[in-house]
């Protein structure tokens, strides 16, 4: 019996990249925020390392041998795929073991998986990134790409919110963007729910930055990533401003065990978040997001 496998949406190449775990070495660990660290990794096999490419918003299945494998977005610059960053908050069984990783430790990676941020869809118009908390990690590769390709957009606007200053990721980098990159046309605005004396930016939830960004709904493409509740409010306000649903993109999280449409865990209605997402267009999933416990 020989099988016709042409019906599947996943390509053979993707599968070959995805089935076998590859060993990678932790090179550097940087604390970013409360309980959140960036792990800089290189793949051990030089052939695999040189061939590896990823798109902004894609994930790797990040494995600690003997402990487990979890989906983590790549948070580094897609133009430099030989050094991969994953920015991870310790919240449970696997991530608490990851927190103990030190330079020289070995992990496994499978990937990259998933549908990326469609950065080129914003070309010719304005790109607006709205990130909340840890949601900045999956959005950062898209911002890097926009910075490198700044001339392709009219405006590039980055709005970031966090619960408090100690929860703001990539703080030094954001300070640099806010102060210096505005001269290169990257508009960065930051806010925290509850500020302290040291905080020089805004106070309030991320949507309070919208008026300051003076969004032009006719030419703006939005990428939003963060807690689901934050994205709901952001989308509601953006639709209210007149941004069409088909130009709002968001990143969805679901439990994932495989990354290649095999395990069934990541289903959201008809979609597999690992392959059809994690980045979705709002008109594709808005209705599903409104159904409790789907």
């Amino acid at each position: 019996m020989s099988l016709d496998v042409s019906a599947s949406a996943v390509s053979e190449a993707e599968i070959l990249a995805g089935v076998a775990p590859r060993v990678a070495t932790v090179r550097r660990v940087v604390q970013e925020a409360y309980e959140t660290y960036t792990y800089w990794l290189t793949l051990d096999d030089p052939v695999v390392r040189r061939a590896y490419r990823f798109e902004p918003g894609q994930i790797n299945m990040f494995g600690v041998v003997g402990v487990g494998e979890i989906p983590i977005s790549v948070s580094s610059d897609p133009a430099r795929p030989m050094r991969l960053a994953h920015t991870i908050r310790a919240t449970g069984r696997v991530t608490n073991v990851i927190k103990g990783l030190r330079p020289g430790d070995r992990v496994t990676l499978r990937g990259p998986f998933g549908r990326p941020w469609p950065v080129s869809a914003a070309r010719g118009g304005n790109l607006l990134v709205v990130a909340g908390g840890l949601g900045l990690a999956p959005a950062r590769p898209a911002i890097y790409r926009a910075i490198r390709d700044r001339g392709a957009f009219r405006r590039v606007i980055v709005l970031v919110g966090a619960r408090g200053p100690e929860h703001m990721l990539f703080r030094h980098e954001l300070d640099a963007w806010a102060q210096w990159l505005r001269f290169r046309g990257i508009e960065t605005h930051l806010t925290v729910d509850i500020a302290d004396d040291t905080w020089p930016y805004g106070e309030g939830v991320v949507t309070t930055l919208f008026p300051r960004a003076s969004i032009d709904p006719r030419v703006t493409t939005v990428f939003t990533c963060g807690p689901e509740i934050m994205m709901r409010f952001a989308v509601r306000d953006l639709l209210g401003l007149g941004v069409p649903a088909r130009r709002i993109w968001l990143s969805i999280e679901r439990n994932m065990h495989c990354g290649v449409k095999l395990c069934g865990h990541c289903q959201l209605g008809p979609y597999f978040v690992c392959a059809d997402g994690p980045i979705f267009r709002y008109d594709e999933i808005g209705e599903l997001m409104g159904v409790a416990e789907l």
Partner: protein
Amino acid sequence: MRFLDEEGFGRLMALLAARGYVVIGPTVRDGAIVLDRIDGAKDLPRGIREAQGPGAYRLEATGDHQLFAWSHGPDSAKRFLFPPREVLSTATRLEGELRVDPAPLPEVRYAFVGLRSCDLHAIEVQDRVFAIADPAYRKRREESFYVGVNCGHPGGTCFCDSMGTGPRCAAGFDLALTELGGGFTVEPGTARGEELLSELGSREATGAEAAAAAAVTDGARERMGRRLETDDLPGLLYRNREHPRWDQVASRCLTCTNCTMVCPTCFCNDVVDGISLDGTEATRTREWASCFSEEFSHMAPGDVRKSARSRYRQWLTHKFASWIDQFGTSGCVGCGRCITWCPVGIDVTEEIAAIRVTDGEVAVAEEVVA
């Protein structure tokens, strides 16, 4: 169409074994007809039939000599092609060096004897899930041999006729048999099947035998235990996500996961890491999982499907609606196992019919009375 007498059938079993296949067929164990390794026709459930209903299964002796006069038990080929537990990779750590090796591809070749049309269809449904990304599945699947049996004895919970998956074997077999008194009519489905058949000493079937074989499945169609109206099931289920019937069924469902374990198409699985006691070797294993468990949808901020209502809705909607979006086929082949093996006898055909008669009804949140 050829005719094979009982001895010829015995030669078929022997030839499959001689060609290096592990022969898997129906046999009686622990009060049920299960699928297991068999050593010949003597292990088959001769003169036995079963009675099935919602939450009920019982074997009975018929006193006749038929080998296949029953409907399937809890097992399907899934248990062999997609084993309940399978090592995916092993990792060793020696002097700081980490090595990860994918599990070697399986060497076993199965010959399945006696699969019904619904179960042959179920294999093709799982192909669409596993055939690309799971090389071990693909190898087992491609190297196995499939002997189907046209069904003359549908169970009390069967509805393959409604799902278009039976009772006559239409595809997915190397050989298809129809049991008549004293022998079998045989049809090859592949060149491989034809070649094997040529070695068995069969003869051309008579017109009367061909007519008798057709009558077997025609009769089965009439005696189907259940029916399901399948018209626009995706539309029906998608527009009734808040139907009150979900609460009603959830009040009976024990979320025991039985239905998903016996279903021949359910493919969900967990990937689990384990480690040896001295910490030098780790294995990554895949195990059957079920959307009926709460951990299935676990995320650090909270489980997505906390209520039994949402999990039953996920399962049923996946089987009959979203599966079609995902894989271009229904996830249900109408085998009825989920009805028979549900401890409280929940019946998918009844649940869907109940939603259909009150299409569009919406659960109203209960008033909180002060």
